[in-house]
């Protein structure tokens, strides 16, 4: 099967601007990526780098003051950017679903679990009430929740964090979506539960053959789950590649910095310093010429202030945006 037929999501040149009192915030600039069926793309970056905004843009759930621009934004051939509000609402919860970070605040406290699950099914005309109930029960069971009948009648606050997140996953699967976007699905959970949820997500993805975008700041999650990775910094994607490529030969200084921040069992020597990237994400308002990472980059030089984010290909399927030559990038160690 050719890649284009298998492709679920194609994004090219996506930009999001937000009107704030001080001017226009360029939250996302000229990002491009794609996701295939059965593939997990991880979007990694610090908070504020624009990864969540990107996800919201795909769902057309941006705040009122935000505007979206894209050369291409297609979901299974449908141009998402050109749809009316009514048309996109037909797709949301149906072909494209999102799982949010904090399951406690993401669920309506006054309605029962069953009701919140069934209403998606009914909204998208998938069947009648009893079919909705049957599907809800099936999915709750599938995500590992026992006593499904009792749970369906309960309210969100009666469930633990892990159970709530499982329920959110079940909710996203009610209409068999083509694409699932999981925004930091494990950040709000206990460490022990995190692994279970991640495993569950991968399992379900395989079973339902969905495309998945996983948004995270945690490289450990990426290593465990992702097929492909896109590293975001200051609203731009600075490096993309398969998970293996990125961990084995990271090119962009930011990527290298991220990787050096996590200890690798077996590799990191006891007593050696963990890397840290000093500084903060810059404010994305006003004049944004040049590479936005240069103030924190150990390799930066004068030329970086004129950098126009051209794409460099490192190998098949692995590319990045940096003005330094590959030799310098590969050679550079990371100073703490």
């Amino acid at each position, binding site marked *: 099967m050719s890649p284009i037929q298998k492709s679920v999501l194609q994004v090219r040149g996506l930009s999001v601007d937000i009107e704030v009192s*001080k001017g226009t915030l360029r939250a996302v600039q000229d990002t491009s990526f794609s996701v295939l069926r059965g593939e997990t793309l991880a979007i990694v970056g610090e908070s504020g780098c624009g990864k969540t905004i990107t996800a919201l843009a795909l769902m057309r759930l941006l705040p009122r003051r935000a505007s979206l621009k894209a050369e291409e934004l297609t979901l299974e051939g449908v141009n998402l950017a050109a749809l009316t509000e009514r048309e996109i609402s037909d797709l949301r919860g149906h072909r494209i679903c999102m799982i949010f970070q904090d399951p406690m605040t993401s669920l309506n406290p006054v309605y029962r679990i069953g009701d919140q699950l069934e209403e998606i099914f009914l909204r998208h005309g998938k069947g009648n009430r009893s079919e909705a109930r049957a599907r809800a029960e099936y999915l709750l069971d599938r995500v590992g929740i026992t006593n499904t009948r009792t749970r369906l009648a309960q309210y969100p606050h009666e469930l633990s964090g892990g159970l709530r997140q499982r329920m959110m996953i079940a909710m996203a699967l009610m209409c068999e979506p083509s694409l699932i976007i999981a925004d930091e699905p494990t950040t709000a959970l206990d460490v022990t539960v995190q692994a279970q949820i991640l495993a569950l997500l991968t399992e379900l993805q395989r079973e339902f053959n969905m495309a998945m975008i996983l948004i995270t700041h945690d490289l450990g999650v990426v290593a465990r789950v992702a097929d492909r990775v896109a590293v975001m910094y200051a609203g731009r994607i600075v490096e993309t590649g398969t998970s293996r490529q990125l961990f084995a030969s990271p090119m962009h200084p930011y990527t290298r910095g991220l990787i050096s921040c996590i200890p690798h069992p077996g590799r990191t020597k006891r007593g050696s310093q963990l890397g840290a990237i000093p500084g903060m994400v810059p*404010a994305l308002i006003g004049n944004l010429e040049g590479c936005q990472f240069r103030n924190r980059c150990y390799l930066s030089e004068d030329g970086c202030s004129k950098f126009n984010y051209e794409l460099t290909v490192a190998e098949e399927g692995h590319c990045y945006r940096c003005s330094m030559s590959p030799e310098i990038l590969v050679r550079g160690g990371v100073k703490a």
Partner: protein
Amino acid sequence: MTEPSKKSNISVMAPSPTEIMRRRVRGHTGFLLGSGFVLLVLLLAVFAPYLSPYDPFEQNLNTRLVNPVWGEGGTWAHILGTDSLGRDYWTRILYGARISLTVGFGAAIISGLIGSVIGIIGGYFGGRIDGVVMYLINVKLALPGILIALSLVSIFGGSLIALVCILGFLFWDRFAVVTRSVTLQIRNNDFVTAAEAVGASKLRIIFGEVLPNVANHIIVVASLEMAIAILVEAVLSFLGLGIQPPTPSWGLLVSEGRNFMFFKPFLITLPGLAIFFLVIAINLMGDGIRDVTSPEGRN
């Protein structure tokens, strides 16, 4: 349509607090309009004797029920006409402002003191003391304000002092509720616990930490209660159980003009509008103060 909002975690350079306040005040038309009008009324009330050649009690049975200058038979001698006893209406309304403002300020100050003390004590000390405070507030809330005010006025008379005191003693509950809730929040702040641990006296903490933070809430509530006091005084006077004739209270003017309402409507519309605009102005001022000091309250 209100679509989901996303709080941006990208920080932008923040201006200083006073600069923020100044900007908000300048841009806040409501606040400026409101306080401007209140100031105007205040000046009119203070300088009343100079603003009218007449005495508000001066009757003239020859010029009774003269229309305002824009009405039939109106003259510039009596811009707003005269009432059923020939008293110049502009003068009566002008002096009525004194009553309203006095009652408003006075009642707000008294109820503010009572309510704030009760509320702060309850919020600060918590426990059983707070239980007592909540009980007091609940009792006060259960009592029907207007009816009790009417009863008290019938017992103690409708002099200005009596009214101010009665209204002051009857409308402190909102002060208590707000100050108590704010004090509770402050109380739970770490710096209060730290101050106590260091051994600072409770009194000093209350005055040093609690009071400055509660102050702007108190002012906002005070403006609201002032407006309410003015309205209640008008009601009481209208019902004959407030300011007694011939002293010109706006509520009393409406009551006096009621008999002539159908063919001399200005007798009730003018004092009513006076009450209406003063109350709006005070409310705008209060809203403005709240927005300027803590805009989270705006929405």
